[in-house]
């Protein structure tokens, strides 16, 4: 109404002001996260304020506005809803925007010119340190018997005219410098002054006992049959492929499209950001930390593994079978515990695991099949999701299952006592004397049954 405007607008304005003020004063206050999570409540509060205002005017015989929320108000609501829900989607680490990635604009323009790289062959020691300084392109490194080093390759230069390309070629020679036991390969791609981009592709053969330290981007790194340690620090869009490595592997990536390690004798350490990770036949410890948005697949790991990626955390003593983390699901078979697994919005299937299990999920269904009748302690907690436990029929355990909102389906049979409590249910009881099995869900049903075909 014209005479006395609505108080809702000013109140909303004050609220927004306070939120931004708090954000400005305390840097720890994470405004974006807050907005992403709580914008629906802002709408509710706004609606409540407008409602109270109309009610007060109605009761107080004041003028009633034609609309509780004006047309402009609705526009703002739609704006908030779009921003809020896209912020909510965006702050989930596996969203589509981050998967597209932004390539440097240069790639798309100009013409490609190819130049050969002069062959370089040297005799080095049997166990040299090979260093490849920050380069852009593919590198294929193969270990061979003896103490020979050889390098071949080719350069792809993208530029608008051939003269620029020639100049860029002469500015970026590939150099191999030997200093004591260290062989350094330099591509000098940062030397070009024209608007060209140089991609150097290298084919390198090194002694089997070499140790590799490389850093690069925009290409495939393929290392195989190397007896020493391998270190790689990668920039954008790199694919990393390591096979038959005798030492340990340390990778740091800014945005690797794929990382694959097969048959590594030492430890594997992986940090940074990337997409798919695939580790197989690793004899040493495995440590993964960072954000890997694709599929993380672990197979045949002989030593303890610690994984932290995409708000999922795993600790296991051994993975003789496999562990597969995908967007929204974890699927694992044949793990050796003690196991600790924490995840968000993820359905979890664990088929065959031994020893103790600690499992915490905020949202997701859980399906568990302990392997042997000699089970370990199991503690499962999910905020919203169903829990399905299939225990070996000969197992001994003390069960305590609890759902606050949902049913319990006892297919295990005698020995377990079911009781309902409000909207939830409980299932308790002991079979022989065994470890504690605790299953808790706030919203969801719990099924306990005997696993079939177990020994």
């Amino acid at each position, binding site marked *: 109404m014209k005479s006395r405007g609505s108080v809702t607008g000013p109140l909303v304005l004050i609220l927004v002001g306070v939120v931004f003020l708090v954000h400005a004063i305390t840097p720890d206050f994470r405004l974006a996260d807050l907005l992403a999570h709580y914008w*629906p409540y802002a*709408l509710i509060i706004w*609606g409540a304020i407008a409602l109270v205002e109309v009610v007060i005017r*109605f009761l107080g015989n004041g003028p009633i506005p034609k609309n509780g929320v004006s047309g402009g108000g609705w526009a703002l609501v739609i704006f908030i809803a779009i921003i809020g*829900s896209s912020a*909510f989607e965006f702050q989930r680490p596996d969203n589509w925007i981050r998967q597209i990635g932004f390539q440097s604009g240069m790639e798309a323009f100009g013409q490609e010119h190819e130049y050969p790289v002069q062959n370089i062959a040297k005799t080095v020691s049997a166990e040299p340190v090979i260093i490849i300084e920050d380069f852009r392109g593919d590198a294929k490194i193969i270990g061979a018997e003896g103490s020979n080093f050889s390098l071949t390759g080719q350069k792809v230069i993208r530029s608008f005219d051939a003269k620029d390309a020639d100049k860029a070629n002469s500015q970026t020679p590939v150099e191999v410098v030997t200093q004591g036991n260290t062989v350094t390969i330099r591509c000098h791609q940062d030397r070009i002054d024209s608007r060209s981009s140089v991609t150097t592709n290298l084919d390198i053969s090194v002694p089997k006992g070499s140790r590799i330290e490389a850093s690069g981007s925009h290409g495939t790194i393929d290392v195989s049959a190397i007896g020493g340690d391998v270190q790689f620090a990668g920039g954008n869009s790199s694919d990393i492929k390591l096979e038959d490595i005798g030492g340990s592997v340390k990778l740091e990536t800014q945005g690797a499209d794929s990382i694959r390690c097969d048959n590594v004798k030492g430890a594997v350490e992986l940090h940074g950001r990337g997409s798919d990770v695939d580790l197989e036949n690793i004899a040493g410890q495995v440590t993964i930390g960072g954000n890997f948005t694709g599929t993380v697949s672990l197979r045949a790991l002989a030593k303890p593994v610690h994984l932290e990626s995409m708000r999922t955390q795993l600790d296991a003593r051994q993975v003789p079978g496999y562990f597969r983390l995908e967007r929204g699901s974890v699927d694992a078979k044949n793990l050796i515990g003690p196991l600790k697994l924490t995840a968000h*919005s993820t359905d979890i299937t664990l088929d065959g695991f031994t020893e103790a299990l600690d499992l915490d999920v905020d949202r997701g269904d859980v399906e568990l099949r302990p392997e042997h009748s000699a089970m370990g302690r199991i503690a499962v907690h999910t905020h919203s999701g169903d829990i399905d436990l299939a225990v070996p029929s000969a197992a001994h355990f003390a069960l305590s299952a609890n759902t606050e909102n949902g049913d319990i389906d006892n297919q295990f049979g005698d020995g377990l006592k079911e009781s309902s409590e409000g909207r939830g249910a409980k299932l308790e009881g002991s079979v022989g004397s065994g470890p504690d099995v605790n299953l808790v869900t706030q*919203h969801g049903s719990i099924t306990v049954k005997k696993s079939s075909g177990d020994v």
Partner: protein
Amino acid sequence: MNSRVALFAQAIRGPVLLITVGILFAIHQAGVLPFYRTWPLLLIVVGVMKLIERLYVPQSPQGGPKL
């Protein structure tokens, strides 16, 4: 008096709708029920509000607020 109630009913339609939208999105983000499965509730709320308004509209054709 009745037309005043009708005006009131019309005025609270916006806020009630806003609160409903807020609740549905809160439920969506909590992961309980996605918004694409709950949005018809908005139609129901609008319908109910309109019905209430109509109940209180004065019978003469020109008197009441336009719906």
